[in-house]
């Protein structure tokens, strides 16, 4: 999401939150406020009404006072005036005196000049009663018992106002404005007054504009309704409207009373002692509240919009646009890898610092890139040099390899020549030896004629030397084969015992010659896995050595099986081997020097035997004590490894 969008959303959220808060708090506070406003406003109007009522009542009062002072009215001849005491319709007789007619005219004039007055009258102490217009019914009537009369009599010095009272002959309810008539000496003799009907009062107040919708209500201090638009409520108790609130209404000077659907705002007139109230519908207060809320919210929205727009403009100019430009540059760098970008740097605020830092970073990257490029160049050079070296090396290797191959070929050729040489040598050497040995034996046997002892001795030497030479040749051939890894073995399981027996018996004669005891301890059968001929060769070597190096005593041959191996031990009581020479035993052409002994043999026997036995999977070990004898032990496997 773009930063700008996010800022706008944030603003919107704040605005909505503010509106919700204002929407919750405002109605509560504003409702009270607007009620107060309405109350204040209404009280002003009620004051005006009070003032107007007072002037209306006062004007009526002053006219009654004037009336009471008129000479004609003050006439003391009570007997001239009509009397309703103890009369009926039938018995009634009007007075019709000149004095009474003059008074009725005055009273009538008064009535017609006061629009809200419906009746002007006078009563006397003798019970006479005169009125501005004739009574509806001429029934018995004693003015002296009427409330207006008694009130005036009790308050002789001023014009007083009665409580509302119902008239006798009409359904009208009136308030009387009355004044006592007094002599020069101050004695009371009658009352003159005027009635204002409650309907008249109502008409008066209806003509008054309260400045708002609402109904005016007037009650006296006891709660009797004196004026109200609905005439049915007139002269009823205000409790019918106020119910439980009546007590509070009557006991307080002024205030606001919440009714079911309205508010009653009231006020007590000081002069009249009446309660003047205005019934305002709650809707109007609510409407006022709503209007206030609407106004407040309207201004609030305008303020928020202006704030948001200003903030956005500032944000856009100071942050978003520079950031966007940095973002755009970053993206360009990321897309194209081109670091040559014009980065605008302005201001010292955070954005400015960011831009500066970004610019520095790009510069650093440029520098690093340059270094890197240099490094890459260097690496390239190194690589190309390495390649060159490698190529040279390869050429050299190829060259050397071919040289080596040539050398190898040469060596192979040499090896072949050597093999050929050995093969032909063995043949060429042995062919004459065959004749030499053969004929020597024949001569020794005397097949070609008798020979003397000297000749026999010499021929014996020829035979021995020839056989020695033959064994030397054979050993050399064997060793060359083994060293070339070309010794071929003819492997099979065979019984070692006949081979061993034959070998031993071939030495019996020689042992006898040396006065040696040749003993053996061998089982009936002893199977072994190996090359029979090679094994025989090894046994010949071992037993031959024992016989050769033992001057007196015995040579003992023992054979036994031990686990997966068989052991052939050849122990003698011979000259023994010095301890430090034992390791040399199995080396080629090493001959342990022995004093006073003519050593025969090739010096290759044990070396060859060990090689053969190793190739057969066995070994030869030796224990020896100098001067006491030696024991050679041949270990060979009973089974092939495959078995």
């Amino acid at each position, binding site marked *: 999401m773009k930063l700008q969008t996010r800022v706008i959303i944030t603003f919107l959220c704040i605005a909505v939150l503010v509106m919700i808060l204002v929407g919750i708090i405002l109605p509560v506070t504003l409702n009270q406020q607007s009620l107060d406003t309405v109350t204040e406003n209404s009280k002003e109007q009620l004051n005006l009404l009070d003032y107007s009522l007072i002037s209306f009542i006062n004007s009526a009062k002053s006219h009654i006072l004037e009336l009471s002072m008129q000479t004609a009215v003050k006439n003391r001849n009570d007997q001239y005036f009509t009397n309703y005491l103890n009369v009926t319709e039938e018995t009634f007789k009007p007075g019709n005196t000149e004095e009474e007619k003059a008074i009725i005219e005055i009273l009538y004039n008064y009535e017609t000049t006061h629009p809200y007055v419906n009746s002007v009258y006078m009563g006397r102490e003798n019970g006479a009663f005169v009125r501005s217009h004739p009574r509806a019914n001429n029934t018995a009537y004693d003015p002296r018992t009427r409330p207006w009369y008694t009130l005036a009599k009790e308050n002789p010095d001023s014009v007083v106002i009665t409580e509302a009272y119902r008239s006798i002959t009409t359904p009208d309810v009136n308030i009387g404005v009355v004044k006592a008539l007094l002599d020069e000496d101050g004695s009371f003799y009658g009352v003159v007054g005027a009635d204002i009907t409650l309907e008249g009062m109502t008409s008066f107040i209806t003509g008054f504009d309260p400045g708002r919708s609402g109904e005016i209500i007037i009650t006296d201090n006891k709660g009797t309704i004196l004026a109200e638009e609905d005439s049915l409520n007139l002269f009823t108790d205000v409790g019918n409207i106020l119910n439980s609130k009546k007590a509070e209404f009557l006991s307080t000077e002024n205030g606001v009373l919440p009714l079911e659907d309205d508010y009653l705002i009231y006020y007590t007139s000081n002069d009249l002692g009446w309660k003047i109230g205005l019934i305002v519908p709650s809707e109007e207060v609510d409407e006022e509240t709503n209007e206030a809320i609407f106004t407040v919210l309207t201004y609030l929205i305008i303020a928020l919009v202006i704030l948001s727009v200003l903030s956005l403009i500032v944000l856009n100019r100071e942050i978003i646009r520079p950031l966007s430009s940095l973002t755009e540059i970053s993206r360009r760098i990321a897309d194209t890898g081109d670091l040559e970008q014009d980065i605008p740097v302005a201001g010292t605020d955070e954005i400015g610092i960011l831009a500066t830092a970004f610019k520095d970073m790009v510069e650093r990257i440029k520098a690093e890139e340059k270094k890197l490029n240099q490094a890459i160049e260097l690496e390239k050079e190194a690589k190309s040099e390495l390649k060159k070296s490698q190529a040279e090396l390869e050429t050299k290797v190829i060259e050397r390899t071919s040289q080596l191959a040539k050398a190898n070929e040469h060596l192979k050729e040499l090896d072949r020549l050597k093999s050929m040489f050995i093969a032909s040598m063995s043949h060429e050497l*042995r062919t004459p030896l065959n004749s030499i040995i053969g004929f020597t034996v024949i001569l020794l046997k005397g097949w070609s004629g008798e020979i003397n002892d000297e000749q026999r001795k010499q021929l014996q030497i020829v035979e021995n030397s020839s056989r020695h030479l033959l064994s030397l040749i054979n050993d050399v051939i064997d060793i060359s084969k083994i060293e070339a890894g070309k010794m071929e073995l003819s492997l099979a399981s065979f019984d070692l015992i006949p081979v061993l027996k034959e070998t031993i018996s071939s030495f019996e004669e020689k042992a006898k010659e040396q006065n040696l005891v040749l003993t053996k301890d061998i089982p009936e059968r002893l199977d072994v896995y190996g090359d029979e001929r090679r094994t025989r060769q090894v046994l010949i070597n071992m037993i031959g050595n024992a016989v050769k190096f033992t001057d007196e005593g015995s040579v003992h041959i023992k054979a036994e099986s031990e686990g997966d191996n068989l052991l052939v031990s050849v122990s003698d009581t011979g000259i023994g081997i010095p301890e430090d020479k034992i390791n040399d035993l199995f080396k080629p052409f090493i001959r342990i020097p022995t004093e006073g002994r003519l050593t025969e043999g090739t010096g290759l026997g044990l070396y060859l035997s060990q090689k053969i036995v190793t190739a057969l999977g066995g070994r030869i070990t030796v224990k020896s004590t100098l001067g006491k004898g030696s024991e050679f032990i041949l270990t060979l496997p009973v089974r092939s490894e495959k078995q």
Partner: protein
Amino acid sequence: MTKILIVEDNPNNLYLMRFILKKYGFEITEAITGEEGIVKAVSEKPDLILMDIQLPGIDGFETTRRIREIKDLSEIPIIALTSYAMTGDREKALSLGCTGYIEKPIDPDKIIAQITEFLKGD
């Protein structure tokens, strides 16, 4: 009289063999090459052939093989004579039809005993 064919190229060895065998009363016929040996084997009908392996021209192995292919000679005892330690010579000789194998240098007593042994089995 028992007739033995000696195939041997070296005159000294031939002489040695001849001397020993004659001493024991055998009738001798000789050949100094393999080819000659085959011809003699067919014409002389010997009772036994002593065959040297290292011969000029076709060697003793090949000569033995060819003799065995000749109908009348398939059963004749042929004893190979070879120098010691020539790799696999013994096995090779036996597999190619030689009846026996004698290693050089020969022992006059041993060779008579061996020949007598092979003739007995005939």
